[in-house]
Structures are given as structure tokens and as C-alpha cells.
């Protein structure tokens, strides 16, 4: 048989041992350790997300508000259960806790300035409070984490809210990582760690274990802050229904639930990809938990984890969230993954839009680095303006959707304003599948 008559060559790739799996096995065979990276889950196989819902704007059954001009309130109050000074924000989008260490100094200050400009809040993160962060934040939430790096009661008393972090969506059930390239002199001093260690934070708080201890812990935090400011409890989304009930029973003013799409500066890749439940499912479970306790509307619910825009935020609010945390979206606004300094992406073995190398400390755009030269690529004031713009745009998106559903307050969005596009989303969210009057599975 002549060569020209051979059948065309067909390359067959294994569905089990894909290119990514081969690369993963061979990398671990070299390193002898689990994969560590930043950013958040890279899973391509989709699960039910906010994209599986659509809004049902008004027609004849309901009357819309004028989309571009009629009043639609975005004022957000958090912590009215027990705190004497609940947090009042102009918008329902907040900046989640991201540490100085994971992020550069410039990024932290830019987040604080940008959020304050539009009446939002900022959160400290692991490693304690930076003076510049406090100065630049109109509203600052102080995180109390298992590591207790930089814990300082005087800083707690300077804050507008306390967040007792039990876990986070990217890595529920384990502590954070900060690899040696990011444990610089300044970070070492702030966290009281030797310079250049691969810092692995603890998973458990050092002085409490279960929910019974947490009742006492929350009272201690209230004593430390004079019962003035709200106490948040932040949970990585796993057994959300039970965990939210326990947090609320323990006396939280606000419960934060961080879904599996949540980001991180560094953690084992398997945690980002294979632990926790999606944000869509988490908000639904959390709402039911509070409703079953008669506390829905009394204990506020903040949802986090992969929120990209005002649409995701509006859907989460319609499902029960009072406010939304963003993290990765804010970093992207700061130029994360933007095609600038492309050669430096190449040095990391990646490309703009594909970078998840926060853990290396070599962020080409100066966001997740402690390198002073790289940090200069993120001028604070310009970066802060982009944060303000993103928060403004997201808020306008929520308002537009709310008005189209006839709501004069974004917090009036409700599940009845949506239909599901997939049976899974219908079953999870308890909203009818589009084209039917049926809630799947009920």
C-alpha cells in the first residue's frame, strides 16, 4: 500500500489522563509535594452557577421602575442584631479579607481607598491591620483568624466590625499558605515569623474548638470592642445549613458564607478544586438555615465566592444575601491578568488571562507580590479609581436589574424574580424551571 493511501492519522487523547493530568502527575513526581497555587478553582467541568438563573423582569403582572433614573436604594445595614453601631454602607458590594502578604502594600491601600470612595468597606485579612489601611478605609472590618498574626486589641477597637473567620471557600478546613518569596522583611515583622519561611497557617483557632466555645468567644470579642461593632462569622461553604445555624445560635450579627469558587493567594490546588460547595448552593442553604431559625432578616447574610459582576451579585441577593463580598474580581480590576508586562508572565510560564501564580510572589502587575519593583507597577491612586469604578458599575448593574423587576430597593429582589435555566438550578434554588411552573425535585 502506498504512503499516500494511508488513512489520516487521528490523535486520540485519554479522557482520564488528559494533558492536565499528565502534567500534574509529572510535576508531583519531580517535586514530591502537592500542587500549590493561587487564584481559585480551575475546574472546567461546570456545576450549577448563577449563570443557570435568569431574571424575569416586569411586563403586565408587575410594573417596572424607570430603568435609568427612578430611585432604587442600595443602602446596606449590617449587624443590627446586637451591635450598638451597625455598619451602614452606601452599596451592598464589599471587599473581602485579603492579607497584606498575599497582596502588596499598594494593592491593600488601593482597595481601601477605592472602596471608601464609594461608601463600601474593606477587610484586613491574615496578618493584622496596616496603619495605611485604617487611614484609607472609611469602614474597616478586622479579621480574627486562626493564625492570630498581628492580633492587636487596640486595632480591633479601631475597627468598624470584627470578622471571626472559621474558614474560607477556597480552602475550607485548612489554613492559609504564604510561601517564602512573600515572607519579606516587612511581612516577617508584621506576622512575627522568620524571614523566608513557607508559612502554613493553622486550621483551628488556638483557643476555641466547637460552636459552644464560639458562643463565649463572640462574647469576648464584644467585650473587647465594647459591644459597639458587629461580629461577623465567616464560613467556608461545606455543611452550610448546619454551620450557619450554629453561627447564628452562637450570637453572630452577620454570617459570611464563602463558596467553593472563592479565591486565595495560595493553597493546595486540590482544596480549590475539590472541596466545599458552590456559591449558588451555599446561598440557598444559608437562607433556609436562617429562615428555619426565624432569624432571616435579623442576622444578615454576606455571600462570597467567585462573584464576577452585578448580575451574580443581584442573583445572590435575590436568593437571600444582604451583601456581597468580592475578592478576585477586585484584583482583576487592579490589573490581575491584564496583558501588561507580558514578558514577565512568560517568565512564570504563563500568559495574561491564564495566570494563577499569586503564590510565587512574582505578580507581573504588582498585585500579589512583596517585590518593591513589581509593586511600583500598581500606582495606588490609579488602582483605587479602578476599584471605585468597578464597585460603581456593579452597583448600577444590580440597580438596573432590580428596577426592571419593579424594586425600589435592591434588597427587595427575591427568588420569585428569577427562573431557572437548568433542572439542577431549579432544584437547588427552588425556583421554577423556565418554560414550566415546576420547581424541579419538589
Amino acid at each position, binding site marked *: 500500500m502506498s504512503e499516500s493511501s494511508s488513512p489520516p492519522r487521528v490523535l486520540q487523547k485519554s479522557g482520564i489522563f488528559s494533558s492536565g493530568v499528565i502534567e500534574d502527575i509529572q510535576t508531583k513526581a519531580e*517535586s*514530591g509535594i*502537592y500542587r500549590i497555587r493561587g487564584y481559585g478553582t480551575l475546574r472546567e467541568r461546570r456545576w450549577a452557577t448563577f449563570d443557570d438563573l435568569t431574571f424575569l423582569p416586569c411586563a403586565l403582572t408587575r410594573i417596572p421602575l424607570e430603568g435609568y433614573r427612578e430611585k432604587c436604594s442600595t443602602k446596606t445595614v449590617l449587624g443590627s442584631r446586637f451591635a450598638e453601631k451597625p455598619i451602614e454602607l452606601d452599596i451592598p458590594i464589599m471587599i473581602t479579607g485579603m492579607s497584606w502578604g498575599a497582596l502588596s502594600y499598594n494593592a491593600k491601600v488601593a482597595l481601601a481607598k477605592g472602596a471608601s470612595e464609594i461608601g463600601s468597606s474593606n477587610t484586613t485579612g491574615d496578618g493584622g491591620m496596616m496603619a495605611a489601611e485604617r487611614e484609607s478605609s472609611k469602614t474597616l472590618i478586622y479579621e480574627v483568624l486562626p493564625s492570630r498574626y498581628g492580633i492587636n*486589641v487596640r486595632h480591633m477597637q479601631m475597627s468598624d466590625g470584627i470578622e471571626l473567620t472559621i474558614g474560607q471557600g477556597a480552602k475550607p478546613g485548612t489554613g492559609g499558605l504564604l510561601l517564602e518569596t512573600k515572607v519579606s522583611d516587612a511581612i516577617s515583622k508584621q506576622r512575627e*515569623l522568620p524571614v*523566608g519561611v*513557607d508559612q502554613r497557617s493553622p486550621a483551628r483557632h*488556638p*483557643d476555641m474548638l466547637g460552636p459552644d466555645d464560639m458562643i463565649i468567644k463572640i*462574647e469576648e470579642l464584644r467585650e473587647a470592642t465594647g459591644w459597639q461593632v458587629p461580629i461577623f462569622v465567616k464560613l467556608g461553604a461545606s455543611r452550610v445549613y448546619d454551620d450557619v445555624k450554629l453561627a447564628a445560635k452562637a450570637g453572630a450579627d452577620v454570617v459570611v458564607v464563602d463558596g467553593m469558587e472563592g479565591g486565595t493567594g495560595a493553597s493546595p490546588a486540590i482544596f480549590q478544586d475539590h472541596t466545599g460547595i458552590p456559591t449558588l448552593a451555599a446561598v440557598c442553604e444559608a437562607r433556609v438555615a436562617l429562615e428555619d431559625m426565624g432569624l432571616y432578616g435579623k442576622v444578615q447574610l454576606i455571600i462570597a465566592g467567585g462573584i464576577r459582576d452585578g448580575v451574580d451579585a443581584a442573583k445572590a441577593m435575590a436568593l437571600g444575601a444582604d451583601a456581597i463580598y468580592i475578592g478576585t474580581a477586585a484584583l482583576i480590576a487592579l490589573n490581575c491578568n491584564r496583558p501588561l508586562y507580558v514578558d514577565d508572565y512568560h517568565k512564570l510560564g504563563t500568559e495574561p488571562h491564564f495566570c494563577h501564580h499569586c503564590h510565587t510572589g512574582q505578580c507581573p502587575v504588582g498585585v500579589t507580590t512583596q517585590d518593591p519593583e513589581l509593586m511600583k507597577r500598581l500606582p495606588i491612586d490609579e488602582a483605587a479609581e479602578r476599584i471605585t469604578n468597578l464597585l460603581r458599575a456593579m452597583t448600577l448593574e444590580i440597580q438596573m436589574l432590580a428596577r426592571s423587576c419593579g424594586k425600589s430597593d435592591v434588597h427587595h429582589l427575591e427568588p420569585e424574580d428569577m427562573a431557572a435555566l437548568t433542572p439542577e438550578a431549579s432544584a437547588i434554588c427552588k425556583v421554577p424551571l423556565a418554560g414550566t411552573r415546576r420547581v424541579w425535585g419538589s
Partner: protein
Amino acid sequence: MAELACAGRTIREINAEIRRLLKEGEAVTVSSPGARHNLGVALLESGVVVFDGSVGYYCAGLIDGARVRIKGSAGWGLAESMLSGEVIVEGNAGNSAGAAIRGGALVVQGDSGARTGVSMKNGLIIVTGSCGYMSGFMGQGGKMIICGDAAEAFGDSMYETICFIGGAIADLGNDAIVAESTDEDKQFLDTSLSYYLPAALRGNLPGAGDFKKVVSGRKLWNFKKSEWKTWEQAL
């Protein structure tokens, strides 16, 4: 010394009154504490507070500057996250005594529970008796003196905390090693024990030369394949 009775008062009222008295320069004796939780939290003045009985969780937690004496035993999280000051317990302390302290001195004139000195960043902890499981875990700095025995996993995964142990160690934690004590260490032990402990207590304790020094082996500070035997327990 001003007297404050706990009976009929909420924790919030008790702590507010302690803070008010300290601010006025008064030393305070708190009677009938009844092992209630969160007594003496966030005391930011440098005065003296005496609890005339046992206290519950988080007593003297988050303090900065106060000198607290407990004439009884203490529950979990005693003096947790203290920035500076002095806390003396004339009895035993529960789990996590001195957790995450960043300064000051905690003295337990008895035994302490599991995770004593966990995540401590600085400061000094003295326990005249024995300490429980995993004491010193992830200690980042400061010094811990245990005059009696240490339970399992002592000094696990530490950074730069230095532990001195006068009795037996049931089991060293991951990456904890016994190091040679120096003359400076012995001087430090002598000075600290003399300063913080009454003579009647010191007589029954080991001499400065009898303490073993436990520090981090530093094999867990950075991942290295060659240290797998250490890491397989710690990862």
C-alpha cells in the same frame, strides 16, 4: 484597693466597672467571680486586678498592660492574645493558656492544659506544674518554662519559641529537638523563676541546670524533599 462584687452584675457591667476603676488609678479586687467567662477582657490600663476565686474562659484575654492575679483556677484561653501585662494564676489553667500572646508574662502556679502557649508570638509563660498535649504548638517566639512534665507532641511545628522543661517529655512534637542549654539560658531561668515565683514555690522546682531546652529543628520551615520523614507527619 477597690472591691467589686460580681453577684447581680452582668459580665459587661463587671468589665466596665473594672476598666473604670483602673482608669481612675484604683487597684481592684473582684469577689465571687464564680468561674464566669470573659472576666477582665481587654484591660488596657496598667493597674492591678485580683479575682478572688476561679474564673472561666478567656479571663484576661486581649489585655495590654494590666496586672491580673487569679486566686483560683482558670478556664480555657487564659490571657489569650495578651500584648503586655502580667497574669498570675494561683491554681491550674485549662486548655490554650497563653494562646497567641504577643508579650507580657503568664504564670500558672499549677498545671496547664493542652496547647499551652499555642501560636505564642512573644512574651513569657511559666507553668510550675505540668502541661498538656501539644503545648507550644506553632510557637513563633517568646519563651515557655514548664517546671513539671510535658504531655505528647511538645513543641510541635514551632518557629522561634524556646521551651524549657524541668520534668519528663512524653513525646517531642514534629520538628522539636532538645538543644544544649547555654549559661545565658540558665541565667534567664534563674532570673525569671526568682522574679515571678514566691520562694515557697521555688523550693520544690528543678534547678536552672536541670531544665532541658526544646527548640525548632527548622526542618519544617521550608519544604524539602530530603526531610520527608519529618514532613510526612506534618503535612
